[in-house]
């Protein structure tokens, strides 16, 4: 894992999206998006279903490459490197830009093997080293105490909230610099949601978090920046407190106050 080079962020900018346009076949999913996501902060992407926020999220580690007919124009730079450039190493990109999905998706294997899966892929075989990574990752996801005696039990036996935090721990095991979270708590109860929100706040001390959420209160609670998307356009982005108290664009105001959407 040591040989995988990290991105180097400058002037506190993790991700810089410039004139980015994305098509799914004929469908124009994102239109000329320009935005900067700061390092070690939480950026929330909000907007009605189909507005393009998840599409943007998936573009940030090129998960959209797998979608047939997907075409990206413009530039997405991470640490100043255009991730859509021909020479970019996808393994390096996805190792440094991890992802957590809406529904927890642990592998049908033990807690330990779930966490060790990524590091093993990157060539770590030594048991003591893997043990250390599993412990550190579970501690980072605030679930070491809960799971240290159940490391060999199946991950599928965990509750939904635990499974989702395990997925976060699994993502952290390869030491990403950026974590993409696509509605990470929408399938969870309020207690588990609270734990993940607290975890995000802890995580941002080390890494950059980009989160898609439909929960406005969650965006206000956890994020530093919020970007509002509508019909493929990035309408407005700014400090979360400002967006939710004094949005500049009437479309943002109408959406967050529930006038439409």
């Amino acid at each position: 894992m040591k040989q995988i080079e990290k991105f180097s962020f400058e002037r506190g900018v993790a991700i810089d999206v410039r004139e980015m346009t994305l098509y799914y076949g004929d469908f124009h999913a994102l239109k000329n998006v320009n935005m900067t996501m700061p390092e070690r902060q939480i950026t929330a992407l909000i907007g009605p279903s189909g507005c393009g926020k998840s599409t943007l999220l998936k573009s940030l580690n090129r998960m959209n490459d797998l979608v047939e007919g997907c075409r990206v124009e413009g530039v997405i730079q991470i640490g100043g490197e255009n991730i859509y450039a021909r020479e970019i190493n996808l393994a390096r990109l996805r190792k440094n830009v991890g992802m957590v999905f809406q529904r927890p998706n642990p592998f049908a294997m033990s807690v330990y093997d779930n966490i060790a899966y990524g590091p093993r892929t990157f060539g770590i075989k030594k048991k003591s080293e893997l043990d250390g990574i599993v412990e550190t990752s579970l501690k980072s996801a605030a679930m070491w105490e809960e799971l240290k005696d159940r490391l060999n039990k199946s991950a599928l036996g965990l509750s939904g909230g635990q499974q989702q935090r395990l997925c976060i721990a699994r993502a952290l095991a390869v030491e990403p610099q950026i974590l993409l979270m696509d509605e990470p708590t929408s399938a969870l109860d309020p207690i588990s949601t609270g734990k993940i929100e607290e975890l995000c706040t802890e995580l941002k001390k080390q890494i950059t978090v980009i989160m898609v959420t439909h929960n406005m209160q969650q965006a206000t609670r956890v994020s530093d920046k919020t970007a509002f998307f509508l019909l493929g356009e990035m309408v407005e982005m700014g400090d979360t407190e400002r967006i939710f108290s004094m949005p500049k664009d009437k479309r943002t105001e109408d959406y967050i106050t529930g006038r439409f959407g």
Partner: protein
Amino acid sequence: MARTVYLNALKELKEGILEMGEHIKTAIGRTINALKKDDLILAQAVINDDNVIDDKEKEIENLCLKLLLTQQPVASDMRKVSSALKMITDMERIGDFAADIAEIVTRGGRTGTSYTVPFIDAMSVAVIKMVDESILAFTDDNLELAQKVCRADDEVDELFNGAKEALLDCIRNDEKFAERALDLMMVSKYLERIGDHATNIAEWVIFSVSGVHVSTEKGF
């Protein structure tokens, strides 16, 4: 889909503020009429009706808290609800001052005179207008009207100083008038305070509309 229940609750809040505003304007008008006519029955009615204003404050307060709890308003809605919560305290105090003036009227029999000074009449007209316009500014999101109310407070302060001078002259001219003059001085002070509370309401309206809370003393 629009949030019907939420939008109806916001409408209910606006109507509640409007209704409470009507009650306090009526209270000021009636208490000054009672003062001028030495009408003890009318004064007693103002005192009794203060409960209606107090109840209205509680009702609006409950509605605001319910809105915050169940609907989690944001942006301009959040400012509107939080401003309403602050405004009703000022409105309730205005009702108290109207009742305080009415109490002076009910005690007025001992002075045996219904004499008042023109400044007090002018003050009551000015503060009723301030209250009226501050409430209207809230319901219409009218920033300019709210700013106008804040400026009008200076006029009320000048009228208060005029009333003070006039009452001093009255005492100098006729010592027997001193007790009545002290009562009228209190009335003037209450009216001046009503002007201050109307200004507070207008300042909350400015916050509700613009997102910036300004203190009139600092200017805007």
